[in-house]
């Protein structure tokens, strides 16, 4: 056991050297790292968790009910259009109720044709997972006597929601990137949730506002003939709806339900200043199709106001003075420079396909993060000093060996964390300090065994040899149980708790490595040098 082949010694020493090299960048500033650190050497630094560097953790959930309602509204529209196709099919009671679009076809002769047209709307979705078998988004239910109901199929809905989440992640990423937040992480969490982590973000309120807005932009013609008083009471001309402005108190507008343009017709949006008043505005450019539509509408409706609507709120309702044909325009409406910028960001990034709600929010200020790091470092240093002193007092020279192994262990833990780019959190630091305490356990086990063997009258070398052999199995068994607990922690934990699990796991593994290889090597070298007749334990 005390013999080490040359290549083994090399491998152990090489591991430590590599560990040190991986570790060094952590002590350099970003600037030094760029200028003075050779770029063929590993140059990564440990990732600090949000609790240590400050930042925002936001867990969003897609508002499934809202998405379904919107989608069914769209389907209702499609059904209407399908029934109006030539030859028209007469129907009554086209509504969305209980999660389904329903209608009653009047003419018994047309039942078959109506069913055929509805079947054409079930919208087959490709299903890559199940090897191309198409899933329909909707199913048509024939309740008899011309009554039809169209509702989501289970697979169709979950597939759609999956896409909604994917799309939302894309939109959020574009929005957050535009804000210039450093290295945000945006990930899917479970089926309908999205986790946004923005380290260093100081203004969580603004971030939340930017992410959470649906940002559905639409242009609608204003119905100037409608009676506002009736409208507020709920009596609306067919095909129109009532919207309020953003002002306080809000002003009501009756607008045509069908939008003239939507956010999808936009190709660009920028904050700008209006030339006459120097007031912040948002200027936008339209796609070719969009500008053609816009030119046509503005030509036909000169002197009529149209409403610019963002998420069901009227931002402004300018009157069309002349046809707008060059495919660009401006949105004004009491913006500040910041709010104009935010709106431009939202329009550029596109609309969220469904409303998102915050279900969990954790924010740590940069001050607290810095305090936590300082406290963690202090605790770690004091803890290590305490352990080192105790080991020296208990085991003398061998305690010194254990302490050297402990230092190697610390180097390796941080090196592995750096390599894995695992996030270091405050509980993570606690995990490392705890490992420091437990790390010497392997040495204690080995040393106590050696003592026992020696007391049984074995020679120094045999005692050391058997001590290592006997302790080895125990070390493995004892540590694997802790590994199991750490594994479970990792699986179920989020954020800081997960960081704790990672450091604990890494700590146990490096401890086993140092105990089995490094400590043994040090003792082997010592044995060869001094040829001891007794082990000083």
């Amino acid at each position: 056991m005390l013999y080490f082949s040359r290549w083994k010694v090399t491998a152990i020493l090489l591991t430590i050297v590599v560990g040190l090299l991986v570790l060094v960048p952590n002590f350099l500033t970003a600037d030094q790292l760029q200028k003075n650190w050779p770029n063929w050497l590993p140059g990564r630094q440990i990732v600090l968790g949000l609790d240590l560097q400050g930042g925002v953790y936001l867990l969003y959930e897609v508002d499934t009910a809202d998405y379904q309602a919107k989608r069914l509204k769209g389907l209702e529209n499609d059904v209407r259009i399908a029934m109006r196709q030539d030859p028209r099919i007469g129907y009554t009671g086209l509504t969305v109720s209980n999660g389904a679009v329903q209608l009653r076809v009047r003419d018994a002769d047309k039942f078959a044709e109506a069913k055929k047209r509805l079947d054409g709307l079930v919208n087959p979705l490709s299903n890559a997972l199940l090897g191309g078998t198409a899933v329909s988004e909707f199913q048509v239910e024939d309740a008899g006597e011309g009554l039809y109901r169209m509702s989501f199929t289970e697979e169709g809905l979950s597939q759609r929601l999956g896409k909604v989440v994917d799309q939302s992640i894309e939109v959020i990423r574009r929005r957050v990137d535009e804000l210039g937040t450093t290295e945000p992480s945006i990930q899917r969490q479970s089926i309908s949730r999205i986790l946004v982590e923005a380290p260093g973000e100081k203004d969580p309120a603004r971030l939340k506002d930017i992410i959470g807005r649906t940002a559905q932009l639409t242009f609608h013609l204003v119905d100037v003939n409608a009676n506002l008083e009736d409208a507020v009471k709920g009596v609306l001309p067919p095909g129109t709806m009532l919207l309020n402005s953003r002002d306080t108190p809000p002003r009501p507008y009756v607008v045509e339900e069908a939008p003239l343009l939507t956010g999808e017709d936009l190709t660009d949006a920028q904050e700008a200043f209006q030339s006459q008043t120097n007031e912040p505005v948002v200027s936008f450019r339209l796609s070719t199709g969009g500008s053609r539509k816009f030119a046509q509408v503005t030509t036909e409706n000169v002197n009529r106001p149209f409403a610019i609507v963002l998420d069901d709120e009227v931002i402004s309702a300018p009157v069309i003075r002349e046809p707008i044909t060059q495919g660009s325009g401006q949105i004004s409406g009491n913006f500040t420079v910041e709010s104009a910028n935010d709106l431009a960001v939202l329009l550029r990034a596109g609309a969220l396909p469904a409303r998102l709600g915050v279900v969990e929010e954790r924010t740590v200020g940069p001050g607290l993060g810095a305090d936590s790091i300082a406290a963690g470092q202090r605790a770690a240093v004091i803890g290590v000093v305490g352990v080192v002193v105790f080991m020296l007092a208990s085991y003398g020279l061998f305690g010194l060996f254990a302490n050297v192994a402990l230092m190697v262990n610390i180097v390796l833990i941080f090196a592995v964390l750096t390599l894995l780019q695992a996030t270091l959190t405050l509980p993570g630091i606690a995990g490392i300090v705890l490992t420091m305490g437990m790390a010497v356990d392997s040495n204690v086990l080995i040393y106590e065994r050696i003592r026992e063997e020696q007391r049984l009258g074995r020679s120094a070398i045999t005692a050391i040899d058997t001590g290592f052999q006997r302790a080895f199995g125990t070390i493995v068994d004892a540590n694997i149980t802790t590994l199991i607990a750490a594994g479970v922690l990792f699986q179920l934990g989020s954020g800081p708790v997960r960081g704790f699990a990672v450091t604990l796991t890494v700590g146990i593994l490096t401890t086993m490595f140092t105990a089995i290889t490094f400590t043994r090597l040090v003792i082997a070298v010592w044995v060869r040098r001094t040829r001891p007749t007794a082990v000083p334990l």
Partner: protein
Amino acid sequence: MRHLRLFPDDTAIPFMRWRKFSFLFSGILSVLCFVAYFTFGMNTGIDFQGGTLMEIQTKAGPADLGDIRQKMNGLGLGEVQVQSFGAPENVLLRIVRQPGGDAEQVAVVGKVQAVFGDTVEYRRTEVVGPRVSGELAQNGIIGVLLALAGIMVYVWFRFEWQYSLGAVIATLHDIVLTIGLFAVLQLEFNLSSIAAILTIIGYSLNDTVVVYDRIREMRRKYKRMPLPAMLDLAINQTLTRTTNTALTTLIALLALYVFGGEVIRSFTFAMLFGVIVGTYSSIFIAAPVLIFLDPQLAGDKSEDEGEEAKAAPAKA
């Protein structure tokens, strides 16, 4: 140089003879823990209950808790806890879960910020919605159970089922006592508390396995020795290791508890307690429980202890 040794080399402490006391002691403590759990209940944090937690730091001198309390109560957010947290400028606000859904919880932060404005620094904000909190609690329980199951299977494979069961009984003992501690002291029970419990499980088992390992070795070596005597021998042989490792771990944890900052104080406190309980349980619960689990494991003269137990090591 003489080394520090807490115990002499040839300890022959008759641990098994005390097993009736240790079982009684642990039994009473466990019952008390259950009583405490059901009378005081757990002080569950927002992780498991939903609600809002904010840590603020006043910019102009030490915080006036009375004034802050009054301002918070003016918001009509239901029960609000205002307590100082570490330095005199630091205040922790706990706001109970608001009626309604997730959006109502999130809105609380804005209301609090509207009251204090720029006079304070918002050091930490945590909002957990009602649905997430339920899931977190569920995941926590599942996690602890999974860890227990995993460990049970591992010990079963490496040892025998008696050891596996014994290890789980000892671990459950530690969990019950730790939860009792939380209930009695009304420490906040949150996600990090679950982490603390899982770590305690890991540590306690680590200890138990080391003792078991020695017991197994003794069994192979001394096939005829009565079980209680053998258990005593095994524990005595591993005693220095057990205490030394517990001490180094306690030293590290104590440093964390004193110097690691307020945020993880209850977390490290729970672990300090857990290491002590875990060390106790591997000696006084995990080992003696084996006597009851399987008479066969004990060999022919298993039921007897006393004189024979003391004599046995000498014979061997």
